[in-house]
């Protein structure tokens, strides 16, 4: 086979009907998602025997436990975003008659779905088989879940970078035949950031004009769990404590936000991304919204970096729980029909 380049590859995502049981991309309902990059890998700590037998080098190697992990980054497209969020540590909900509004709020579960869990219906979390074709060669990863999300506006376009963990790898029997849909990206005229007092239903009346960059990171600290069975694959993916942060740089115009940092003032933050300067409420499809209902400045640094530089404040906000509500919510208006 001749050498290949990344552009000729593709990624397929198939919801599993039994968590951890691999389904190839020939399966009905498989979605072929345009990505910017992926780095999913079979991850194993091999055992190297250092038995003492008059040799100063490892004597033998044995397979050990393994799992799958890596990153997938793509340009957020409302058609596909719900698929990634369904395989996350979030409670899904679906409303409307099509196009649908999918909302995702944090789940307190300690693991991704395991064999025996119900993974059908619009209100249940899922696991996915992810198949990557690299230079015509298929790699199938089963029991995949997204454990860490980073939404970033880069060059004006909203991207979603995901750290994915899976249970096992197999060689797919069939590679599927991709079909593609016209992309709908969220560009520079789509985004607005709002800041309001922390609460379960902030008004978010006026967009902020001082955000230079935006990265929302939701890290559920996943970890593969291998057990003593007759399988080397991971048995499930556990979740840890959730770290939620928003990183940005703000125009430094007054002491107000600095004082808010020092006095631990709690704020809610919303990112809305809707093409052509629309609003999430007014859109019927192709709209994205992320709300953090309660947060404080974790860091706020301002300095005179150099003579020609603007005076900016580098900040990290840290998400908190809120009484009577959810710490965060991600909502997508989408043409996807997940049932």
């Amino acid at each position: 086979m001749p050498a290949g380049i990344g552009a000729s590859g593709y990624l397929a995502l198939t919801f599993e009907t039994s968590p951890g049981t691999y389904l190839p991309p020939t399966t009905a309902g498989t979605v072929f998602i345009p990505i910017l990059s992926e780095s999913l890998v079979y991850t194993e700590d091999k055992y190297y025997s250092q038995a003492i037998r008059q040799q100063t080098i490892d004597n033998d190697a044995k397979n050990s436990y393994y799992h799958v992990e890596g990153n997938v980054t793509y340009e957020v497209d409302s058609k596909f975003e719900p698929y990634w969020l369904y395989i996350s540590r979030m409670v899904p909900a679906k409303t409307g008659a099509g196009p649908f509004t999918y909302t995702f709020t944090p789940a307190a579960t300690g693991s991704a779905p395991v064999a025996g869990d119900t993974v059908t219906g619009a209100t249940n979390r899922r696991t996915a088989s992810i198949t990557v074709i690299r230079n015509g060669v298929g790699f199938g990863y089963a029991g995949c879940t997204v454990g860490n999300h980073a939404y970033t506006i880069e060059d004006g376009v909203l991207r979603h970078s995901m750290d994915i963990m899976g249970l096992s790898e197999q060689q797919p029997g069939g590679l599927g035949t991709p079909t593609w849909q016209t992309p709908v990206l969220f560009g520079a005229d789509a985004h607005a950031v709002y800041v309001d007092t922390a609460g379960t239903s902030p008004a978010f009346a006026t967009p902020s004009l001082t955000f230079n960059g935006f990265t929302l990171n939701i890290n559920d600290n996943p970890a593969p769990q291998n057990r003593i069975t007759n399988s080397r694959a991971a048995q499930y993916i556990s979740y840890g404590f959730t770290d939620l942060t928003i990183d940005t740089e703000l125009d430094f115009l007054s002491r107000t936000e600095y004082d808010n940092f020092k006095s631990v003032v709690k704020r809610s933050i919303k990112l809305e991304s809707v093409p052509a300067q629309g609003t999430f409420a007014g859109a019927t499809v192709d709209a994205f919204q992320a709300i953090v209902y309660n947060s404080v400045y974790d860091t706020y640094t301002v300095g005179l970096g150099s003579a020609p530089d603007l005076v900016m404040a580098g900040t990290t906000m840290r998400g908190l729980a809120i009484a009577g509500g959810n710490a965060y919510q991600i909502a997508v208006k989408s043409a996807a029909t997940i049932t």
Partner: protein
Amino acid sequence: MALKVSIKHPGFGPDSEFEVPGVGMVKNGGSITLNEEDEGRFFSRTGMKVKDYYKDTEDVDVSGTSDAKLPANQVPAPNASPDAVDADKEGDS
């Protein structure tokens, strides 16, 4: 008789339009008819007959009988690059 390529993806609504590579744009639940010339063009791009190329997916169905006199599949690499969609070709329904 001609070939009819249909797509029915359960994960998207009827307004969703799909690029079926080498064939054309088809609305979900709809189909597109390929004549002899279309089939020949598809073969020259992929080295495979349409039916064979799409036999590995449940969401795309190819029915009917081919009119084209084509040689045996050249069978390039597995899942040969699908090439660009035929921009002039639109779905029947």
